[in-house]
């Protein structure tokens, strides 16, 4: 039973991918994607409940191991995947109607998205650093085709940059993994790359070797999480990928890579003391925030605007990880969920705007509120959620990170980060209001009626925002899960 439960988040999307391979894209198969995401979410919630009562569960001879942290990440994957896949049929049929896609490419899209989900679920539920590495690299390979799906010059360029930079970053993480394995082989326990074993024997790891390994792992997985200095792929890939894929990449893939950084941090703190990873993460966090702020101010493309905002939020997560402590870590995990939902809604809305207006520039989309009020409302509330206005959960998590940061020794970094967050918020509001308000542009095609937002997509967007606000008001049953996940990350039993 446990085996089945732990295996479900990986196996169900694999089966769904096979279904798309066998039956292609047709009305009957259009909703398999969303059904599979719903099953992943259900399995994640069930295993979270089980883990809360009985502690970590293992399956497949110790290959899979789900503790509170993994269960929480599985819930985030399931929730954002459900949001993205529920809006996918509407997105794909609009693409097919506009002759930008065929049922064949739609089937390939759905197949790859399911494989992508399976790889992410494997990454967070594997018990072994090596398997985690394989799963994260697999996400790069699968999503490369999704980024380059449109086959235009810019899409191919984005896909090339994405694979080269991410594979290189991840190659550094592989070197780090090998060195950590080397250090681990020379301890009394010889735990190899098993997470639990590594944490238990961390204090006996050789500090010199571990320091090199940890630096490589944090920079390598940081590249995949969109943290500076290896962030250059992110704005290109996120702006060129189809909307549901951008939602998944920005909403969960970045966090899955960040999950790897958190796991490494637990080992590093036990082996080297908190100072080493703290310095590394503070530098990466502030560099990412400065970069996002400076490139957001004069941004002219709205999907790139959302992409830079993802770099900002990853920077905030890195700052929270640098601060450490139960409050900061619980806030960081809540931030992962809130950012995933808000960014998912925004990327899906951005995809819809691109489909209905044909403009990817901010100035090309004026007066959206007058023409498509529901979509404009989703974008408006999504941006408010993203910049951390109450009642959305990003407010609660940013407040938690700021409080923990000011209470710890990183007050100056926290203040600097808060200033940058304010600058970014101002830039986001300015750009968004230019899109939403004003008079619709005149010109050819302006008079034609805009197609209505399909009910399925509208439901997904509104429910996504409502959940984001709901979690901000009360974390409810998630409270205990967040608390026990935060204790795992802080390394205190």
């Amino acid at each position, binding site marked *: 039973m446990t085996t089945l439960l732990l295996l479900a988040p990986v196996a169900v999307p694999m089966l769904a991918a096979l279904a798309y391979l066998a039956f292609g894209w047709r009305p009957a198969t259009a909703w398999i994607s969303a059904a599979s995401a719903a099953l992943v979410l259900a399995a994640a919630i069930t295993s979270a409940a089980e883990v809360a009562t009985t502690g970590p569960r293992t399956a497949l001879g110790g290959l899979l191991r789900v503790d509170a942290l993994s269960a929480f990440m599985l819930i985030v994957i399931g929730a954002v995947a459900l949001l993205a896949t529920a809006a996918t049929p509407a997105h794909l049929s609009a693409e097919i109607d506009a002759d930008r896609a065929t049922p064949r490419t739609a089937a390939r899209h759905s197949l790859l998205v399911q494989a992508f989900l399976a790889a992410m679920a494997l990454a967070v539920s594997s018990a072994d650093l*090596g398997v985690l590495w394989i799963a994260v690299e697999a996400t790069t*390979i699968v999503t*490369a085709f999704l980024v380059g799906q449109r*086959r235009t*010059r810019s899409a191919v360029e984005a896909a090339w940059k994405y694979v080269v930079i991410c594979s290189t970053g991840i190659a550094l993480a592989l070197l780090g993994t*090998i060195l950590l394995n080397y250090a681990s*082989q*020379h301890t009394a326990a010889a735990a190899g790359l098993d997470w639990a074993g590594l944490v238990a024997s961390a204090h006996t790891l050789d500090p010199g070797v571990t320091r090199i390994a940890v630096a490589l792992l944090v920079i390598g997985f940081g590249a995949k999480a969109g943290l500076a200095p290896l962030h250059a792929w992110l704005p290109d890939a996120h702006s*060129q990928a189809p909307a549901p894929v951008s939602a998944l990449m920005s909403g969960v893939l970045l966090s899955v890579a960040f999950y790897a950084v958190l796991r490494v941090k637990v080992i590093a703190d036990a082996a080297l003391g908190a100072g080493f990873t703290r310095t590394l993460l503070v530098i990466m966090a502030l560099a990412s925030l400065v970069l996002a702020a400076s*490139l957001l101010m004069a941004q002219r493309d709205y999907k790139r605007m959302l992409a830079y905002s993802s770099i900002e939020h990853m920077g905030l997560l890195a700052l929270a990880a640098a601060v450490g402590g139960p409050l900061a870590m619980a806030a960081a995990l809540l931030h992962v969920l809130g950012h995933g939902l808000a960014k998912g809604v925004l990327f899906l809305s951005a995809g819809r705007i691109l489909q209905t207006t044909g403009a990817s520039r901010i100035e090309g989309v004026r007066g959206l509120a007058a023409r498509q009020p529901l979509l404009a409302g989703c974008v408006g509330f999504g941006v408010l959620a993203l910049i951390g206005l109450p009642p959305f959960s990003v407010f609660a998590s940013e407040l938690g990170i700021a409080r923990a940061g000011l209470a710890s020794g990183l007050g100056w970094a926290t203040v600097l980060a808060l200033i940058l967050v304010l600058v970014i918020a101002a830039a986001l509001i300015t750009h968004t209001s230019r899109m939403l308000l004003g008079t619709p542009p005149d010109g050819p095609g302006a008079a034609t009626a805009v197609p209505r937002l399909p009910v399925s997509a509208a439901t997904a967007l509104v429910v996504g925002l409502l959940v984001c606000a709901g979690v901000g008001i009360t974390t409810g049953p998630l409270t205990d899960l967040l608390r026990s996940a935060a204790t795992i990350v802080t390394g205190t039993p």
Partner: protein
Amino acid sequence: MSEATYTQLLDVTCGGLLFTAVLVLWRKELAVIIRVFAAQGVALAALVGVVAAHERSAELSGVAVGLLVLRAGVLPWLLHRALAKAGPGRRETRPLVNVAASLLAAAVLTLLAYAVSQPLVALAPSPATHAIPVGLTVVLVGFFVLVTRRRALSQLVGFLLMDNGITAIGFLTTAGIGLLVELGVSLDVLLAVLVLQILTTRMRETFGEADLDELRELHD
């Protein structure tokens, strides 16, 4: 195998790794670079073979054969196929840094690798771990090739050099990282190369040629 022969054979194979890495920096014709890369694959497989013979491990011998097939056979073949599709005049690399400066950089990178890997050697001194700096040099040279070359195919070679270096370090530090992980890593590398090769083809279809200088659509 006596300890002395083991050390000598290790040194020879590691010398091969280092020499081929430097050759990649030296030569400009992509066809030659791919042949050099294949030679490096042979050296890497030989290195693992030597470790396998020393430890009398059948599993490692199997891995060595697998590496030989993948690194000296399949990957160079894929690269050759991509090169054959490229038009004439696209068959030389256009480095951003000239050859003399590249070779000088390789020397600096070697020194850097020796400096950085001090703690790695100190943890468990043995003939194998003393060769770790060579593996690290190959990684750094690969990274250097990746950032200073403009042709898509030469960037691909840079990525694969890095990977060869990492694999070498993997086998020099301990006897690999478990068969399952080893297989997964190899599969991922193979797939990444396939993806990049498909993208090279697509780039040629959409851009007319696979020169990364042409990639200027996306910027801020």
